């Protein structure tokens, strides 16, 4: 078959369809992953001991479990206890749970790094504890957590590919189907790889710009030279 025909009439359209699904997966997971991360971090750091324990256990369990196994549990396991999710829903739920746990770790680290004086100052102005957390501590912590959170976002882009393993035909799934049907493994997966590289590279650049824009003066990173 003509290379150009294969590329432009078969491979690229399929990949574009897959890309749309991939972007949907990311768009549906990322905001909830962030919200969950914030909730878990705050719950762990400032919550009632029982809530704090719950948050810690959640992070512990999720970080120890392979995401692919988590997806299997949600998609193949849950029906056996009476909960049936579509593959798309199961994927999103898995990504949110996973992304949320990792985000929580970064946010918690940032929360810890905020000086105690900030809370004292806010309380002295008459704010309640929750008001202080919401309007003084969290805005600072989130800013500090941005490098970690962006990393996790990039991971989310890449790990969204695992949805294919529970039958969602997203970008890598689309590539796999074309590869198998037309026996063009290297070309198809290389093309899929390029799309991911583009996605990841664009995101990395965007994230760097974001980091610079919200950087707090006086925290410039130094890169010592090791040349001699």
């Amino acid at each position, binding site marked *: 078959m003509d290379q150009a025909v294969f590329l432009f009439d078969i491979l690229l359209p399929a990949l574009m369809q897959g890309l749309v699904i991939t972007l949907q997966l990311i768009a549906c997971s990322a905001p909830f992953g962030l919200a969950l991360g914030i909730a878990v971090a705050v719950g762990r750091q400032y919550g009632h001991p029982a809530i704090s324990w719950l948050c810690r256990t959640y992070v*512990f*369990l999720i*970080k*120890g*479990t*392979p*995401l*692919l*196994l*988590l997806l*299997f*549990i949600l998609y*193949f*396991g*849950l*029906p*056996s*206890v009476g909960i049936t999710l579509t593959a798309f829903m199961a994927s999103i739920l898995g990504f949110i749970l996973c992304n949320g746990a990792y985000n929580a770790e970064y946010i918690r680290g940032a929360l810890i790094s905020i000086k105690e004086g900030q809370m004292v100052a806010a309380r002295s102005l008459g704010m309640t504890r929750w008001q202080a957390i919401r309007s003084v501590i969290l805005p600072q912590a989130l800013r500090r957590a941005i490098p970690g959170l962006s990393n996790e976002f990039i991971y989310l882009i*890449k*790990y*969204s*590919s*695992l949805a*294919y*393993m529970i039958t969602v035909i997203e970008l*890598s799934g689309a*590539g*796999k189907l074309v*590869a198998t049907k037309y026996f063009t*493994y*290297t*070309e*198809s*997966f*290389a093309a*899929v*790889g390029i799309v*991911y*590289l583009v996605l*990841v*590279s664009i995101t990395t650049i965007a994230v760097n710009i974001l980091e610079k824009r919200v950087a707090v003066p006086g925290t410039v990173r130094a*890169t*010592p*030279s*090791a*040349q*001699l």
Partner: protein
Amino acid sequence: MDILPILIDWSPYILSGVASTLGLVLTALGLGILLGLPMALGQVYGAWPVRAVVGVYVWFFRGLPILVLLFLFWFGIFPAIGLGHLSAFVVGAVVLGLRGAAYQSQIFRGAIQSVGEGQMIAARSLGMSKFTAIQSVILPQAMRIALPGWSNEYPNILTDSAVCYAIGVVELLTITSRIVTQTHMTMPVYLVAAGIFIILNYGGLKFLHGLEKRVAIPGFGTGAT
């Protein structure tokens, strides 16, 4: 039906899955050091073509999902270069290792660069060659600095190793799925598998943190004083 008898029946099979998973992880970690350390040295001390090649390698392997890398090498690249006879296990371990090298090289690079400039200057002022200085002054310090970050590669590779299921490596997740199919004890079997992964995860981390303490030097790096 109860889960316990099933587990006992299947335990040799489960253990072989654990062994296979650990085999993947250890090979990948080993390959990651073997390739990642020279890459880091190349990036810090090498001429620009070396730095460029390593940079592209890192960009490529960190930019692609592990699933796509496994597909690309298993179905595409290895057969195309005449390595189609390699077992899924070998391909899985090699791909995890190649990818691990990309991540680990950046951990090592950061560690090497964080060793104070004065260390190299002092070493050279004593008449050490650059090679000797790197080998006996820079690297012993850099490796200690890198260890905590490097330890965190272990859980990453462990959880990624489950994706090798996709190319038919008979590791823990594959075994789990087979037991599920055979026994129809879906949820309990999955949860047991998750439990095993969690134990492997934190057991390994505990070991690595113990190692960190063992090689810690008073007042140096993040080690305990």
